[in-house]
């Protein structure tokens, strides 16, 4: 391209504008096509268990026995669904108070230490890869639980603890943002009335930022729900509903991770795993809509 000609000719100018428009539009189109084909392919595979192989939807969602190689094969996915929900919700129950405390510390108690020390700590926690969490869970948490509690140490408790650390950065970051964006007048009003810092925190700060805190918690649960390898390493992978938190269990993701490579494409065993993936995907939609709803409430 010759620079000197640019001023005289108007057409390259328009052509350039056109290039920009088309290029960026193709990029966004790629994104949209990708997500629609993702939903389409996972759904068509997941539904073929019911449509082609004739497995009953209700049996899959509420059945307690997962025996794909049995005679007749049984596809009860309830143990996996139960495992996924219990680990992720338990993880959120552990991580939410911790995240709230860290956020209060960073905003209300000591912003200086918060910015210079806690902020990098939280960011580092977010950067640690999930397999490393799984490895540490396997070599620290599981032996610890095995010594303290009856059982093998693996199970929902170990999975939830590992997940709690993984989602702590998400919850803390959103809680911190919420506390920081609170109008100063609210807190000052409370202090002016003679309230102590703690009274201000749990009477004013916590109730007003609750929708935002909930957003963080739901985001955390969503992340925990979809996490595969770290959970698979510490949960034990027994396909039944455990009787205690320290007994081997299974989640949707761990079942998919373990068996997807061992089943032939198109077989009913393989399709059933795609149905698990479909459940996982539907839950992602549910989480996104809950978050949208909570964010809508935050604006009020």
């Amino acid at each position, binding site marked *: 391209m010759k620079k000197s000609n640019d001023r005289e000719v108007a057409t390259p*100018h328009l052509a*350039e504008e056109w290039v*920009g*428009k088309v290029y*960026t539009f*193709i*990029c*966004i189109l*790629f*994104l*949209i096509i*990708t*997500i629609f*084909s*993702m939903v389409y*392919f*996972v759904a068509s595979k997941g539904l073929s268990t019911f449509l082609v192989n004739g497995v009953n939807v209700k049996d899959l969602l509420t059945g307690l026995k997962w025996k794909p190689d049995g005679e007749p094969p049984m596809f009860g996915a309830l143990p996996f669904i139960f495992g996924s929900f219990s680990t992720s919700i338990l993880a959120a129950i552990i991580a939410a*108070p*911790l995240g709230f*405390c*860290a956020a*209060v*510390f*960073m905003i209300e108690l000591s912003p200086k230490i918060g910015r210079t*020390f*806690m902020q990098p700590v939280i960011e*580092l*926690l977010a*950067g*640690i*890869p*999930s*397999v*490393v969490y*799984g*490895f*540490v869970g*396997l*070599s*620290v948490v599981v032996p610890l639980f095995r010594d303290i509690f009856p059982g093998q140490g693996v199970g929902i408790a170990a999975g939830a603890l590992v997940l709690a*650390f993984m989602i*702590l950065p998400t919850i803390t970051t959103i809680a911190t943002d919420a506390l920081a964006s609170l109008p100063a007048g609210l807190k000052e009003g409370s202090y002016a009335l003679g309230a*102590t810092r*703690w009274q201000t925190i749990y009477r004013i700060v916590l109730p007003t930022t609750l929708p935002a805190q909930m957003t963080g918690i739901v*985001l955390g649960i*969503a992340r925990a729900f*979809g*996490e*595969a*390898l770290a959970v698979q*390493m510490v949960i034990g992978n027994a396909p039944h509903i455990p009787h205690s938190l320290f007994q081997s269990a299974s989640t949707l993701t761990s079942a*998919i*991770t373990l068996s*997807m*490579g061992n089943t032939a494409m198109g077989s009913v065993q393989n399709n059933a795993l795609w149905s698990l*993936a479909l459940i996982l*995907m539907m839950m*992602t939609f549910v989480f*996104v809509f809950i978050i*949208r709803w909570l964010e809508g409430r935050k604006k009020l």
Partner: protein
Amino acid sequence: MSAKTADKIATGIIIFITGLIALALIGLLGYILFRGMGHISWHFLTSPPETIRKGGGIGPQLFNSLFLLVLTMVITVPIGIGAGIYMSEYAKAGKITSTIRLIVEVLSSFPSIIVGLFGLLVIVNKFNFGFSLLSGALALTIFNLPLMVRITEQGLRSVPLAQKEASLALGISKWKTIRSVQLPIALPIVLSGSILAAGRIFGEAAALLFTAGMSTPRLDFSDWNPLHSDSPLNPMRPAETLAVHIWKINSEGLAPDATQIAAGASAVLIITVLLFNLGARALGRYMHNKFTASK
């Protein structure tokens, strides 16, 4: 109990819990580095793994991780920046744009294993790319695009409006303005965001199990022709990355020193991700200082 005592107790508890979180992270990092550092040596970093004997290394895995990272970034960055520009500059406020926003949000919250399964179904089987570096790179691209779009949007939004308007007022086309005025100003944010995304790619495993595969063929590190099947640069060969390797030896490792290898590999992974993190911060700060008048 008086309000003042309650305040003191609550403050104490909050400080205690925050300290606990900090300690947990220090313990976590210390544990990984302490367990792993002793096992890291030049031999460990360069030699191929052993299946049943002692003394295997992580050489090919480390190379695969780095090569996959480069491949993924080469695909992700142009598409992500393009889509980000569209969202921030070209998209008109309205129903369609907010739908696109929702779509990007949904894509960013998909679990990585779903992305991996989609990759298995479409990239590996339908497009017939097989278990290969290219399949892995495409799956990771899908996984990272929403992040890249968000980073670009954020960067472009940080550009002062006056600068954009001054450029447009000079009669410069919109695309040229974006390219030569807005993007350079947004560069520090885009670049440090991309490095963080790179750290995420480096540690990702679930999306790669069924796309890049769980094995590495014997590589000939003296053959750098990308078209040869045992060349390390061939993008169509299966490639087990470092993160996948850690998962694999933990769940089905047969070597007697599997735990040490896992510890060493975890330490290498953590150190690399930390370097990415620090690099992103340092680079962001350096470029901010260089491009703006602030000292």
